[in-house]
């Protein structure tokens, strides 16, 4: 899959993890460049990365502020995109990860409110990441048994979804989370 990101400058904020790393590699391979930290310039695309392995006690407030500020800068300039890498648990809370699920839901709602506030010049979307990698680099092993595809996903499958959301022809999609979870959040994958 290829999208034309030539001349596009990416900003990155948040959790450094293998999914975010490869996503940036794929974006660069499609022509984008990465803005290094410390610059005051507003990126064309801001990638906001949350911890994708469930962990309690994460604090999302700083990332909320960073995303909102970057969004305001994009509005002032007249264009931009923000993409959040969230857990699919943002829309399907997990019993064993209550605080983590709650914080993901906070970010999901932030994404949706930003999409409304920053429209129409700035598009804001999210990828809901399920169980990824073997061994897992995102999600929880419990997700795999209820994902009807019957396997964990690959990092490439997440990265390509981000590429789709970044695509120059993808211009009417905002305020959405697209989950890459093999069907985990679609319903009950097992027979009862």
């Amino acid at each position, binding site marked *: 899959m290829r999208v034309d990101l030539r001349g596009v400058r990416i900003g990155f904020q948040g959790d450094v993890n293998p999914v975010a790393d490869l996503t940036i590699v794929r974006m660069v391979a499609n022509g984008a460049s990465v803005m290094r930290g410390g610059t005051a310039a507003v990126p064309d695309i801001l990638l906001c990365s949350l911890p994708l392995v469930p962990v309690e006690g994460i604090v999302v407030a700083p990332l909320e502020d960073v995303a909102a500020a970057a969004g305001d800068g994009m509005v002032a300039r007249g264009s931009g995109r923000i993409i959040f890498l969230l857990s699919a648990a943002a829309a399907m809370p997990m019993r064993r990860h209550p605080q983590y699920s709650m914080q993901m839901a906070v970010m999901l709602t932030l994404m*949706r409110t930003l999409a409304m506030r920053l429209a129409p010049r700035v598009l804001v979307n999210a990828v809901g990441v399920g169980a990824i990698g073997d061994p897992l680099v995102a999600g929880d092993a419990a997700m795999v048994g209820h994902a009807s595809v019957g396997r964990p996903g690959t990092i490439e499958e997440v990265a390509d979804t981000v590429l789709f959301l970044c695509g120059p022809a993808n211009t009417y999609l905002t305020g959405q989370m697209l989950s890459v979870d093999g069907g985990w959040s679609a319903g009950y994958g097992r027979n009862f």
Partner: protein
Amino acid sequence: MQVDLGGQVAVVTGGAGAIGRDIVRRLAENGALVVVADINLDGARELATQFAGAMACGIDIADAKSIRVGVAAVLARFGRIDILVNNAGINSFVHRVNIDAYPPEEWNRIIRIDLDGLFLMSGAVLQPMLGQGQGGRIVNIASVVGLAAMRLQSPFVAAKAGVIHLTRSMALELGPQGILTNAIAPGSIMSDGTRALFYASDGTFAARTAEFMRHVPLGRPGTPAEIAEAVLFLASPSASYINGQVIAVDGGWTAGYMI
């Protein structure tokens, strides 16, 4: 976006229609052998001539026999079906009334095409697709009204909500066989058919449209090409871990409450 659908056979119902034409074009541009399936065979033929290897097929999805004959013709030509885009659908622009006044025959007509037709078409295509043993993709075209109800079009609202949940049901049942099912929920889409509803004679938004667009963050209707882009992604090899999802391509309409 450019993907490699090289040689995959893609059936697009309603393929000669407003959104269907762009779906056909994007799939064909990315290497698919596209079947333009439409009740309007002349329109399907005209479109199919524009793309190498494309085929026109007259199918009325409300008629099981028509589906059977059509799918058999596709298999006779290509021997397989890899991608099904259930795009055909209707709404009533005449009967804009509350449910207590909704004509039952019009209810039946819309449900029979938008929900029953999608079920029948999917079943007919799944038999060969499962037999091929190589998985496949199904993309259902629902509507945002299946996510957020609107007044005065109860059968369309009910049918599209049905399509969305049927999508999830299909995803759970077919995922283990490698067939991935997802849905696109388009918002308000500009086409020749809806242009007259949206615009005043001077080309500006009609007053009612302007009021409605205040609820849509992007403040405009979408285009068929913007829907087709999402269909192309879901049909592509890159979307191989996305199953049972509904993507609202709606300018942010369902992101939240705008006012």
